[in-house]
């Protein structure tokens, strides 16, 4: 599949068709899960009641922002080794989307925390390991974008960005570890969905009533984000082609 898309022209062809479908489907699914989450399902017990409906945005975005940084690092790696222009275009497109979802995760979480974690929350917000790891992730994204913006040519931006993304990735475990060590006791949810499979019986597991729309919403967000990324990639490629044409005109003139 990737080898097929490796060629920019094929990618343009593919994405032209794929984007509307993917985005449409994504909107549909996440829309449905939101509808379910906001109106249909009962208030989550001992999770702040109605406010806990934020979960249906919060959790998918939380998972996504981690996945997207992985994607960023991987495409950087691919570009760095095989000098695959499309990989760089992808990395460049992933960064803002990833930053967006990271911010979304943090924002929804913060809103959620307000009532749930009570008054102390103000001091708590920066005192929770998982919250902090999300913040750090946000910074890896922002730093990547800032660096690319600062370097004058695309080539340099691509290479510097790739180096940064890769170094960031190998540091991520250490950062996560240190943050967890810093506060082994997080007031935050344990990741119950992940456990859900083997420990379905456990009460801590999320009840299917929530789980199904949650998972569907997650799927929808995945589609949506990948659609947006492809959109940005197209824009980037168009931009490059336009530059090329313009420059050719200039040189002939």
């Amino acid at each position: 599949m990737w080898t097929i898309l490796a060629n920019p022209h094929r990618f343009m062809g593919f994405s032209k068709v794929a984007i509307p479908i993917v985005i449409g489907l994504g909107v549909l699914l996440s829309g449905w899960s939101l509808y379910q989450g906001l109106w249909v399902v009962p208030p989550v017990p001992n999770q702040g009641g109605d406010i806990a409906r934020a979960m249906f945005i919060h959790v998918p975005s939380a998972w996504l922002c981690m996945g997207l940084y992985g994607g960023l690092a991987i495409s950087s790696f691919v570009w760095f080794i095989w000098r695959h222009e499309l990989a760089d275009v992808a990395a460049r497109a992933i960064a803002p989307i990833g930053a967006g979802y990271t911010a979304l995760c943090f924002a929804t979480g913060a809103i959620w925390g307000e009532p749930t974690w009570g008054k102390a929350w103000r001091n708590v917000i920066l005192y929770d390991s998982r919250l902090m790891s999300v913040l750090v992730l946000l910074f890896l994204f922002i730093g990547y974008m800032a660096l690319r913006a600062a370097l004058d040519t695309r080539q340099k931006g691509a290479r510097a960005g790739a180096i940064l993304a890769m170094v960031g990735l190998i540091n991520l475990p250490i950062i996560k570890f240190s943050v967890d060590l810093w506060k082994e006791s997080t007031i935050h949810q344990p990741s119950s969905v992940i456990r859900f499979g083997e420990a379905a019986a456990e009460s801590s597991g999320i009840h299917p009533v929530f789980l199904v729309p949650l998972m569907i919403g997650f799927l929808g967000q995945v589609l949506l984000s990948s659609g947006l990324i492809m959109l940005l990639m197209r824009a980037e490629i168009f931009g490059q082609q336009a530059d090329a044409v313009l420059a050719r005109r200039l040189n002939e003139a």
Partner: protein
Amino acid sequence: MSESALIQGAALGAVRGERVLFRDISVTVQAGDLVLLRGANGSGKTTLLRQLAGLSPPQAGEIERTETHHWVGHSNGLKAHETPRTHLEHWARVWGSEASIPDILREMGLRRPSEVPSGMLSAGQKRRTALARLKLVARKLWLLDEPFNALDRDGQALLVDMIAGHRADGGAIIAALHGTAPIEATREVVL
């Protein structure tokens, strides 16, 4: 690659921005050669020279090197806190050179400013200090970018002698140069 060639660049090309600077340029240098890179401002002499030096990978073509070379670019490579003496001592250490720094300083007419930090040196004195590196260790190939810039008459004569001597010793030089060359060249590469 032909025997005795010190460096050989084949079908080299460079692109800057969206513009092709040069394409299909080939450079071969034998012992005793002086190859001049000619061309208008912005034609790509420095770019080509940096490719030959291995500082930037050629966007097209192949480069084969047999020797380590000396490099004197547009910028002299002096750190602000270095004096001509400390600069030469530094690179002498890096290259394990036995040469006598005081002698070199004298030959290059740098005896007097030898203790002045490069920030306060005159343009020509900086250039002379950079060129003095050529005398620290014998290397067959010299890559020089507009080496005569900022040099006074004596300085230019001095450099001409250095080049002639180097060629006589079986060395070779590739130099980017404007205006009339003060010295007979083996070949000119026009960009």
